[in-house]
């Protein structure tokens, strides 16, 4: 039996959440709504008295100052207040509900032990003239996601109860493939959601033919996961037959590329031979040197497909997953900051045009932001850097990049597990969640994904991960384990499979702690339940290790051992369910050859006359959603926890200007800092992915320079989000971008240390397929010896001089200026690597000498947006003379000079007293003294002919920049 406790606000208490809901309902046009209220509903199961139920409600579930409750037995129907329509939303069985665990703990602390389970729901009450069917529509649009939640009908009294789940009866499942035809193999791969191609299926068939037996389901799933695009990165590691047409000045040439990753990204790092690279492309995150005692590691991941289906849960588990990467790097790093970069559909996208099976971009954005917020904040990791971009092509397939950096003692930077080590799983329990996540992200999204792949969607529980982290760091510092890795995509299968690759592993699956009974051995093995990590522990240290975890209420369980059999062997209650050679699992995948072609897009650049007054253009650019202030997002993230955020994401007179990069001081007693920034612009890729890649590297590095870091000791990460690589045009653009990465990394002398690709980002409805634009994110980290030398982008004092450093060119293809004019085509900005590198080094030197008062990089929106942002962030005006700006063409169009997004350019504020010293450093660089800071409230720009071509108050500019995304 159960008791139902409904917690509600006392009359007259203001609840911002229900107030917000009321406004959203009205905005959706569901008619007049007088009132909306939300109640928290707790179902408590077990044999306990009514008196005890009251004790729980009063003592634990309500905040007596503002809340009260109603108590109902399972035989009673709750009273709905007069005039209100009501709706209850509950998580589906098996979906993580973090409140359940905490509530049970709280109840036990009250001394009541007879409550066996807690489930929570929300009751929404609406008062107003809503038509009958409106309620379900509101629910669908605003209140719940069918994949993880359901509407609980009022007369629902038999709550789904896990104790009534049928127990699991072991039965070994064999899959008949020995005699399967090609067609049957293909069907098996598709229907079983294995996402393997025919060659791979044949290879598996051949392996088992040699063994003269059919595989078990578990063996097949294990191979599929290991060989998936997500885990195996077969596109990057396979052979690519590449052709190009119209490559212009940067020809890669038609050729067969064996292992694109090794041929570009990894090759640059190898050739650069930087001694501060500690561990690259090996571990869960790349590691570089920080100081004599510590190293820093950094990883950025994507979680696109889950976020498309369930934005909150997808982003939540996305950030939760990437946090485990540094935790699982070396012998475990302490996470010190997070980053997040998102691409969504336009927020004003017409609801009528929305493809079936997709959520509205506004809902996606809200869900994703709160998903990252709730996990990152709970983990106590500051989220310090990011970007949000918008384009129609992201409507069906948004992009969610999340990154985490960690710090670890240098002697704990490597792992090695040995034969005989015990396999221990720590953290959360295993359930049915996320089954098939690894394979599902290796296929395209379709409108059916909503139903077929719902198992791949889950909600995280940050506190489980935080508790695990607290214990892991203690165990690490006491040297209690020899290796660690996280259970990400592929779950135990990929974690144990990777760790035991060289020697072999044996796991007894019945010993894995489960959330509920009834899981098959295969489900246990491939489940992607969150918040789990796997350790390799010397047998004699096992007891001490387990104690650390038990003392702080974290589960740690011995599930097997590493062997010397070179085999992966799995058992369930002593019955063998899997036996595969490690060699076959990790190296048996047939090499694939994919065709790739890149043809210069036939886009015509429209010729047009510029407006004489560019003030309105600047305002429109400042309001461009990619450029507009992201304060609404930033303030929801705790970007200062741990106390080390020295340059914050928002800077300036009113703490609201856009910082180029963040500076974090990870050790309390040292002034040494880490700088983090990112470069992303998919629009250049529409013109030429090579220059997009070079531009992204340039942007990320020049932002490091802007806050005072140097290229010395810096490193970058690549994250490719692309469409279906089986289509030659998508793969062709990917190849060009990868070569752009190689050249830029070499040219700047900054190595890649880690990366990740997410392919198959396409969305299909019926026969129509929309691919995302090939989108490359470059994340950069740099080291700063003394953070008190840092510089911010806000103008500091009237009378100071303003310099433009770097040459502007008429290369507006992919620029935001062209985007608002709806012009396709044009040239994407190029990078002159030699000159750019020299320029970055000079400016870094000038900062170190203390000659720079403020500096901001010219990127989205060019010089115009850059100076506007510097002005309103500093609360100071400026006079700018465009004729002093170095410009490559002879046309000297004011609009091009102001809004071109040519790379490697900076606006720099310098005190008059430092004029000579600064200009001396800039010798043999292109620069212009283009104006000065004023104490007026106005930005004035004078064109090449001396005319005032732009005049605006700072207030107007700031409003244009802040208003579009003030609230989402």
């Amino acid at each position, binding site marked *: 039996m159960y008791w139902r406790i409904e917690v509600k606000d006392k009359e007259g208490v203001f609840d911002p959440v229900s107030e917000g809901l009321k406004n959203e309902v009205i905005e959706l046009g569901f008619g007049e709504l007088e009132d909306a209220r939300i109640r928290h509903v707790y179902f408590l199961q077990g044999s306990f008295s009514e008196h005890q139920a009251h004790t729980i409600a009063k003592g634990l579930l309500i905040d007596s*100052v503002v809340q009260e409750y109603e108590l109902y037995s399972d035989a009673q129907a709750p009273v709905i207040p007069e005039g209100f329509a009501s709706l209850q939303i509950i998580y589906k069985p098996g979906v993580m509900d973090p409140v359940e665990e905490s509530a049970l703990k709280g109840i036990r*602390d009250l001394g009541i032990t007879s409550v066996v389970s807690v489930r929570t729901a929300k009751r929404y009450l609406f008062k107003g003239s809503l038509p009958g069917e409106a309620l379900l529509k509101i629910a669908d649009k605003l209140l719940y996601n069918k994949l993880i939640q359901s509407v609980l009908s009022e007369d629902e009294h038999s709550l789904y109860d896990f104790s009534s789940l049928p127990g699991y009866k072991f039965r070994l499942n064999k899959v008949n493939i020995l005699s399967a035809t090609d067609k049957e193999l293909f069907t098996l791969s598709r229907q079983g959601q294995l996402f393997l191609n025919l060659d791979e299926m044949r290879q598996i068939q051949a392996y088992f033919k040699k063994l003269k037996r059919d595989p078990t389901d578990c063996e097949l799933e294990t191979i599929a996961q290991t060989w998936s695009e997500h885990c195996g990165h077969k596109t990057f590691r396979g052979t690519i037959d590449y052709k190009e047409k119209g490559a212009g000045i940067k020809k890669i040439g038609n050729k067969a590329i064996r292992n694109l990753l090794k041929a570009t990204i990894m090759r640059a790092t190898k050739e650069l031979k930087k001694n501060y690279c500690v561990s690259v492309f090996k571990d869960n995150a790349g590691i570089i040197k920080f100081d004599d005692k510590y190293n820093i590691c950094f990883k950025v991941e994507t979680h696109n497909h889950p976020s498309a289906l369930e934005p909150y849960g997808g982003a939540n588990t996305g950030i939760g997953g990437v946090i485990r990467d540094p935790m699982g790097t070396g012998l475990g790093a302490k996470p010190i900051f997070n980053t997040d970069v998102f691409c969504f559909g336009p927020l004003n996208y017409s609801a009528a045009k929305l493809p079936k099976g997709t959520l509205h971009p506004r809902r996606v954005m809200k869900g994703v932001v709160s998903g990252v917020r709730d996990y990152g904040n709970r983990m106590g990791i500051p989220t310090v850097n990011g970007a949000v971009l918008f384009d129609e092509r992201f409507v069906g397939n948004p992009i969610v990049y999340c990154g985490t950096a960690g710090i670890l003692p240098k002697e704990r930077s490597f792992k090695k597990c040995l034969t005989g080590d015990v396999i221990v799983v720590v953290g959360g329990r295993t359930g049915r969640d996320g089954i098939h996540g690894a394979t599902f992200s290796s296929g395209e999204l379709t409108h059916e994904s909503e139903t077929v792949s719902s198992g791949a969607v889950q909600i995280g529980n940050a506190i489980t991960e935080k508790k695990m982290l607290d214990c892991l760091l203690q165990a690490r510092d006491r040297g209690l384990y020899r290796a660690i890795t996280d259970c990400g995509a592929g779950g135990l299968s990929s974690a144990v499979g990777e760790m035991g690759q060289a020697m072999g592993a044996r796991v007894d699956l019945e010993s894995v702690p489960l959330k509920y009974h009834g899981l098959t051995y295969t489900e246990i093995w491939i489940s992607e339940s969150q918040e789990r990590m796997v350790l390799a522990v010397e047998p004699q240290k096992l007891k001490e290790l387990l104690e650390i975890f038990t*003392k702080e*209420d974290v589960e740690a369980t011995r599930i097997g051992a590493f062997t010397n059999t070179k085999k992966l062997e799995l058992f369930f209650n002593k019955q063998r369910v899997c036996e595969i050679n490690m060699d076959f699992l990790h190296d048996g995948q047939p090499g694939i050859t994919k065709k790739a072609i890149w043809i210069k897009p036939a886009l015509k650049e429209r010729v047009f006359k510029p407006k004489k007054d560019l003030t309105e253009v600047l305002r429109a650019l400042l309001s461009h959603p990619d450029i507009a202030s992201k304060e609404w997002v930033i303030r929801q*993230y705790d970007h200062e*926890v741990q106390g080390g955020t020295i340059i914050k994401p928002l800077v300036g007179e009113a703490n609201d200007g856009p910082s180029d990069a963040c500076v974090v001081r990870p050790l309390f007693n040292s002034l040494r800092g880490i700088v983090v920034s990112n470069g992303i612009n998919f629009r250049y890729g529409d013109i030429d992915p090579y220059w997009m890649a070079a531009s992204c590297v340039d942007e990320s590095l020049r932002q490091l320079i802007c806050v005072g870091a140097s290229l010395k000791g810096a490193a970058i990460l690549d994250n490719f989000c692309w469409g279906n690589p089986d289509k030659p045009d998508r793969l062709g653009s990917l190849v060009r971008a990868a070569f752009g990465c190689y050249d830029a990394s070499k040219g700047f002398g900054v190595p890649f240390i880690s990366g990740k690709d997410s392919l198959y980002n396409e969305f299909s409805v019926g026969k129509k397929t929309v691919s995302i634009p090939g989108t490359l994110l470059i994340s950069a980290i740099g080291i700063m010896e003394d953070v008190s030398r840092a510089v911010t982008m806000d103008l500091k004092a009237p009378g100071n001089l303003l310099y433009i450093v770097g040459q502007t060119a008429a290369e507006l293809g992919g620029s935001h200026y062209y985007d608002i004019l709806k012009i396709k085509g044009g040239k994407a900005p190029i990078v002159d690597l030699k000159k750019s590198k020299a320029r970055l080094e000079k400016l870094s030197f000038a900062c170190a000498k203390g000659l720079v008062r*403020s500096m901001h990089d010219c990127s989205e929106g060019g010089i115009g947006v850059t100076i506007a942002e510097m002005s309103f962030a500093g609360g100071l005006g400026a006079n700018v003379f465009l004729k002093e700006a170095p410009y490559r063409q002879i046309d000297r169009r004011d609009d091009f000079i102001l809004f071109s997004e040519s790379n490697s350019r900076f606006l720099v504020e310098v005190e008059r007293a430092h004029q000579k010293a600064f200009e001396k450093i800039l010798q043999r660089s292109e620069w212009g003294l283009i104006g000065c800071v004023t104490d007026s409230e106005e930005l004035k720009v004078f064109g090449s002919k001396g005319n005032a071509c732009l005049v605006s108050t700072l207030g107007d500019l700031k409003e244009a920049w802040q208003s579009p995304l003030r609230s989402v």
Partner: protein
Amino acid sequence: MIRPKVLILKAAGINCDSETAFAFESAGADTEFVHINQLVSGARRLSSYQIMAISGGFTYGDDISAGKVLANELKTKLFGEIKDFVRDGKLMIGICNGFQVLVKAGLLPGSDTFMQEVTLSGNDCGSFQDRWVYLKSPATNKCVWTKGVPNVIYLPIAHGEGKFIPKSEAVLDSLRQNDQIVLQYCDERGDIGDYPVNPNGSVDSIAGICDPSGRIFGLMPHPERHLDSLQHPRWTREGLKRHGDGFPIFLNAVNYFKK
């Protein structure tokens, strides 16, 4: 010189413990991280420490409501020891989530019955907010922790549930009369205002209170995040000072035991 011993409480979801410990150490105290389970099991005794600090975080995920589950745990398992600790003239601070815990456990504002008399509920703006706020301290020396701090100080907040609400007008009056209102949100000049000056809609702009003895202090802002001026959001404009505005709060606590 006596170095007071500070217990930095650890529990699932506490996440500002390291910087809080560093704050006390810089001010001249010794600190020890103690997990709540160690107190409950008796492996550590509260009586061995002079100061107890519950720092920020999301204890038990802030599930049910912020700080509630830990408050419940303290009340049901450690209340005797805690009462002794307070009675013995020792100090306690709750920062952010720690403040929520102290309030929900009835330790603040702290009546004889230890019933909950005030709460910290969801911000009026509807979401978590990380922003810097000015705070003023009424000119009384009641609270041990804030003695002699400047009239207006500048600290960051980072919370979703920080709206201070008293149970009744009588509770608010008694806080006023007993000088238990220690910090109020204000602007640079010290004037009370609406959002974002008052970032969460707190009644009377209350950001921090103390118990009648002045030794138990709870506040939503994070003094441990402004120990040195490099943590100030505008140090590149306004220059560096010797200490941040949060530092004297920890120094006061340490000095209390040096007399």
